[in-house]
């Protein structure tokens, strides 16, 4: 088993900085298919995961493609899939939210990971990947964070409005979401996987730090504690955008690996995470990955690595890798990480 990531998550020295590019829809590209087809086909999805590992050799694999849709769809929200060769990422359909906001949250159906939506398919993929690669590389299941799931149950704009007009309802909906996430995450843990929580709708780019504390912090703490008690020693929490304003709450969630996205202040993360002995993943902005030259990405990756200042809990990552990114570009970043860690 690759111990590199484990060591970084414990903020202990390792042979090199771990490399965790955010590859979700791009998995489909590895098998020459569209995300809409791969995310609904257990064999294609499994093959795509193997291809990702073989070609990119990240220091962990994440079972997830359209990560924010799975739980919401299992509850009853409608997801838009694309036809033909359209490589767009499946998303919550317009008017697809299952919850209207006027009914009781208790009327929502709690999803069963063994039966509902694509949860069983994703768990099957995880089972396949663990069977083949489980001894080589950490494998984690992607789950929504509670605020992001609530957004996909009632619609993002509606949820943001409700935080002002009906805060009690939002708390109930986030609470329901937390329970659904616990069930799904536990099913991954039972297969020998870790769990990664994604909650970018709770980013301070959208929600105030006060609202984060009011609506999101406690349910997130509960989820993380639950996963840790269920056997996941490490639970990363991914919130995109500039999260510098919520870094204290972020650390209070109990996640032992948080995200310092490309827009966030890496100095602040370095200072606070070092003090808290908490690992963080720094993201290289992926906006120009499709057309960038490998040399440019080497330079940018190198500059990013300098930010780590030798902190053992530093993990090199990327924001979401666009579908179709040339392999040479991902390898250029990976090689830069490897060279840096050898003293480059």
């Amino acid at each position: 088993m690759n111990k590199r990531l484990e060591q970084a998550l414990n903020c202990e020295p390792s042979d090199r900085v771990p490399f965790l590019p955010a590859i979700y829809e791009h998995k489909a590209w590895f098998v020459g298919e569209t995300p809409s087809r791969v995310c609904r086909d257990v064999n294609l999805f499994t093959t795509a995961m193997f291809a990702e590992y073989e070609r990119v050799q990240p220091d962990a694999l994440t079972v997830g493609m359209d990560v924010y849709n799975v739980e919401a769809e299992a509850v009853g929200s409608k997801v838009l899939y694309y036809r033909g060769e359209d490589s767009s990422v499946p998303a919550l359909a317009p008017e697809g939210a299952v919850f209207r906001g006027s009914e009781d949250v208790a009327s929502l159906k709690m999803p069963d990971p063994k039966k509902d939506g694509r949860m069983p398919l994703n768990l099957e993929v995880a089972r396949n990947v663990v069977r083949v690669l489980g001894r080589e590389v950490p494998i984690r299941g992607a789950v929504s964070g509670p605020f992001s799931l609530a957004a996909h149950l009632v619609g993002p704009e509606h949820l943001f409005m409700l935080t002002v007009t009906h805060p009690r309802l939002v708390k109930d909906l986030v609470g329901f979401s937390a329970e659904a996430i616990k069930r799904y995450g536990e099913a991954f843990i039972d297969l020998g996987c870790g769990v990664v929580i994604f909650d970018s709708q709770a980013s301070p780019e959208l929600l105030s730090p006060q609202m984060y504390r009011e609506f999101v912090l406690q349910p997130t703490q509960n989820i993380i504690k639950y996963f840790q008690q269920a056997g996941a020693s490490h639970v990363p929490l991914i919130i995109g955008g500039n999260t510098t304003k919520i870094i204290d709450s972020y650390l209070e969630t109990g996640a032992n690996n948080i995200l310092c996205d490309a827009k966030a202040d890496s100095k602040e993360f370095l200072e606070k995470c070092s003090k808290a002995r908490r690992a963080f993943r720094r993201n290289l902005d992926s906006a120009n990955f499709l057309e960038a030259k490998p040399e440019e990405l080497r330079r940018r990756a190198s500059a990013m690595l300098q930010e780590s200042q030798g902190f053992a809990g530093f993990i090199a990552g990327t924001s979401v890798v666009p579908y179709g990114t040339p392999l040479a570009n991902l390898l250029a970043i990976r090689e830069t990480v490897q060279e840096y860690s050898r003293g480059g």
Partner: protein
Amino acid sequence: MTMNELDELAQCLGQGQTKRVADLTQQLLDKGVGPQRILNEGLIAGMAVVGEKMRSGEMYLPEVLQAASGMQASLRLLKPYLVKEGAQPLGKILLGTVKGDMHDIGKNLVGIMLQGAGFEIVDLGLNVPPQKFIEAITDHTPAIVGLSAMLTTTMLNMKTTIDAIGAAGLRSQVKVIVGGAPVSQKFAEEIGADGYARDAVLAVDKVKQLLGVSAQG
């Protein structure tokens, strides 16, 4: 008295008091205050403060959406009066979220703000392919096309759309502005857009600037 009520209207708008905003608008109309004045000195003034507070981190999306909801409620009341006055739109703006992107909160806010500022809006919705933009430019002859994207992975479709508009021979007929969480001025320049705005209030300023419309509308 009227001045105070216009100030109050602006203030209530910023506080997200949708019903109070609608009530005040009706009261002002009943008193014979001109709809254009209510728009400029109440709604637009109020939303300008909202924009400033959003940029300074005093307000976040939930409060901004509440303010926009108040603005919409007020605009619904003002519209018949504006039509009666024969007020002409300042220009026609085509809006859409680019192909592959299902996020429309930002685009909707821009649409509401532009409408409030006196522009006519043609909203193509979300997940709009380049061809649909091209057809709409031909059908509606807008002065400006506004492209929105929320994801780093879909913002690349802004370039595809601008390139397609160019390939269709329509680029010289329209100005293109872009916006959305991952978008920047630098990116806008790289993809050949005419303008970028980081929020809905600044989008109105940018549109006015591109069309040579004075700040007073």
